[in-house]
């Protein structure tokens, strides 16, 4: 009963014309920022922060949150169309999304991304509304050993991301882990693999690597085959530009999987949306009836990670609003905004400012509907980009890549690094090494190493800490099971062969 009253309170706040307007401004800006690679929601919110001093606080937080979750919608656009991941959480979307675009199914891919985002985004908000406090308390049980187990579980996803050869997948992952090690060591403040370069002290930005390896390498590979270039097929007619009923039916499980995994990972302050998207892609492939087709343009391969990275925003707001603990860069800035306005963000925020909290939550329902309405009509429009001839498209991709990378930290050094990783990506393509495990290793390497060292500091160097705590033990078991599964299959197929030979 109480929650219905709260919800009504929320809607009475969120549906005032002023707040509706700011919600729209937020989600619109978010969509734009999401589409532009490099410029992320965190930077945008920070830059708009001064403008909000003069605004009503509820309207301001509604707008800023709109930028945050809105950016997740747009993130998939360049991944699908151009193989340029707009943000780290959209890297996995490239795998099947770009293949779909190559097969002339860019429209359905973009469409399903928007729909999955809507479904999962809404589920995330429902989660935030209904189960925030208990979930937040549960998330506190995650200490360093649990994070280590989670990252290890994430790394086993390489089993699902490696192409034909597992060895090559693992090698690529190791390179990724090494790249994650570049920079200043958090625990000793010593610099590692920086070669005296000041620019490397903070490590290599993930965006630089992923855009280089995906987008620049793609351009290089295509430039090579200049003779026989064929344009992408872009079928005409609105029907071919939208996901079909069958597509939606295929994605039933992906919607659910993305929503749940995204929300749960989002609640953990030390995890992040990239891990959420990788994990839900892995889960989708693991339980699929045709796992071998993933990576060739399967629609679930787009729906699951896109869903996960949207419900993650609902999850990430849980620790922020119920405990006053920011779980990601973007939420850390929202926290700073609340402090700047003189609101005390903390465990008592909901109690002290019910109008603000419930107004925000309900505005997120409204915002998600707005985003769907805003994004679906854009699908046919964006799909047309692929009609552009190659001699315009590829320089365009390069341009977007360079601008995106430069905007990360306004440094030309990063642009040179982009070129380097572009060449690496090209070499990997030529030698048939998969790119996704490298990126995965790089995303998780940082957290994995950190969590391991934190765990060992806590236990005075005893590794047993990783398996004596029930949560981390459980996750490590799952990870081991995933690693062993392909071996079992191999043995089984070998035995089947042996039996056949006997007969």
């Amino acid at each position, binding site marked *: 009963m109480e929650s219905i009253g709260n919800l009504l309170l929320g809607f009475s706040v969120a549906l005032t014309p002023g707040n509706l307007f700011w919600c729209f401004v937020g989600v619109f800006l978010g969509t734009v920022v999401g589409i532009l690679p490099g410029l992320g929601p*965190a*930077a*945008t*919110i*920070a*830059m708009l*922060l*001064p403008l909000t*001093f003069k605004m009503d606080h509820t309207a301001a937080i509604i707008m800023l949150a709109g930028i945050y979750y809105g950016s997740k919608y747009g993130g998939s656009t360049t991944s699908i169309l151009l193989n340029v991941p707009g943000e780290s959480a959209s890297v996995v979307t490239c795998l099947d999304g770009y293949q779909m675009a190559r097969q002339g199914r860019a429209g359905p891919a973009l469409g399903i991304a928007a729909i999955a985002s809507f479904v999962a985004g809404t589920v995330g908000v429902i989660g935030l509304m209904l189960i925030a406090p208990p979930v937040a308390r549960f*998330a*506190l*049980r*995650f*200490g*360093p050993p649990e994070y280590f187990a989670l990252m290890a579980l994430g790394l086993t996803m390489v089993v699902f991301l490696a192409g034909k050869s597992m060895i090559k997948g693992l090698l690529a992952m190791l390179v990724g882990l090494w790249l994650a090690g570049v920079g*200043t060591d*958090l*625990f*000793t*403040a*010593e*610099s590692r693999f*920086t070669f*005296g*370069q*000041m*620019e490397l*002290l*903070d490590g290599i930005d993930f965006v630089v690597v992923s855009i280089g390896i995906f987008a620049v390498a793609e351009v290089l590979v295509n430039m090579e085959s200049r003779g026989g270039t064929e344009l992408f097929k872009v079928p005409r007619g609105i029907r071919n530009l939208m996901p079909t009923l069958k597509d939606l039916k295929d994605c039933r499980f992906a919607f659910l999987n993305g929503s749940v995994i995204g929300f749960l990972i989002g609640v953990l*302050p*030390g995890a992040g949306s990239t891990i959420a998207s990788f994990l839900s892609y892995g889960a989708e492939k693991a339980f699929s009836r045709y796992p071998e087709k993933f990576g060739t343009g399967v629609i679930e391969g787009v729906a699951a990670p896109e869903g996960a990275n949207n419900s993650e925003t609902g999850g990430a707001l849980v*620790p922020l609003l119920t*405990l*006053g*603990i*920011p*779980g990601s*860069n*973007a*939420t*850390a*800035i929202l926290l*700073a905004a609340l*402090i*700047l306005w*003189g609101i*005390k*963000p*903390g*465990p*008592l925020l909901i109690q002290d400012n019910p109008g603000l909290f419930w107004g925000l939550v309900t505005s997120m329902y409204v915002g998600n509907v707005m985003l769907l309405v805003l994004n679906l009509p854009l699908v046919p429009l964006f799909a047309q980009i692929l009609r552009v001839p190659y001699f315009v498209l590829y320089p365009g991709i390069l341009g977007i890549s360079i601008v995106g990378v430069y905007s990360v*930290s*306004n*440094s030309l050094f990063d642009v040179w690094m982009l070129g380097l990783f572009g060449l690496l990506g090209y070499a990997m393509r030529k030698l048939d090494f998969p790119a996704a495990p490298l990126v995965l290793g790089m995303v998780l390497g940082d957290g994995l190493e*950190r969590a391991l060292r*934190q765990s060992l*500091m*806590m236990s*005075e160097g005893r590794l047993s800490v990783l398996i004596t705590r029930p949560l981390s033990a459980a996750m490590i078991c799952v990870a081991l099971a995933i690693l062993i599964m392909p071996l079992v299959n191999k043995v089984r197929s070998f035995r089947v062969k042996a039996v056949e030979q006997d007969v």
Partner: protein
Amino acid sequence: MKRSWCCLLLITSGFVLSGAGGIAHAAAFEPTKPIEAVVHTGPGGGSDIFARAIAELMQKEKIIAQRLQVVNKSGGGSAVAMSYLAEKKGDTHTIGFFTGVWITNPLTTMEAKTTIADLTPIVRLVLEPAVFAVKADSPYKTMKDFIEAAKKNPNQLKQSGGSVTGRDNLVRLVVQKATGAKWVFVSFPSGGERIANLLGGHVEAMVIEPQEAGEHIRAGNMRVIAALTDKRLPSFPNVPTLKEQGVNVPVIPQARGILAPPGVPKEVVQYWEGIFDRFAKSANWKQYVEHNQFEDGYLKGPGLNKFFDDLTVQMREVLKEAGAKVVR
């Protein structure tokens, strides 16, 4: 045409007036284009938000005619921002926002070649106080309890914090040295994780800003057992300082302020000192300081130079004793 004449008249009368007041402004500097305000964090980092808030407050108070344009030069701790300022030698339209990292980072990082002594100090604005906190249901009610427990079981208690060269760890190091107690420092990159690990019971203590601690205390999740300042904090009148609890250690300050590139003319320094003199007295700024529970740390001129020198010496010593590799 008419307006510019008016302006000229105003300016000249200003000269005459200030001359009459006995303060000689030979050729007063006035910025002619937006000011670049360099910070060492990305958008949303502590320094970035501080700088943006100041830019906004200055406009609100109409203290400065030109905009302060925040420029993020993140990377290498503070190395990228500092070397950027060093390259802008003599530039009159650039300032930088320093914090304690600007002192400790060059001390421990070979690649960070610019030190704070290379730059032109202008003002120190605030000192950020900190408190030592434990979980609300923790058995440690005073700093003494905590230290006794850490002595009885060396390296069993844990403290969450950020980088090993940050204030959290330096506080631990000086207290350990003064008392002989030993406990473990576990680094977490984000502030959120530090709090989450305390509330989740994975670590026993942390150093936290009073503003942040206040809310967790109100919710009954946290307890503050010592103020890491010279005097008790107004927001925690019942929490004694370390010294009051018999732990005689130097206070490790966390300062924020403004400096300029090397080699800027004296008039520019005077201009900024004048601006910040007025700004520090403004109502909006005072309210901002109070909201964030900062300590007013206004300091300029020779006092600021001495602060930098003393702090550099103190930090070098603390870091060396902690076994960190000190390179300068």
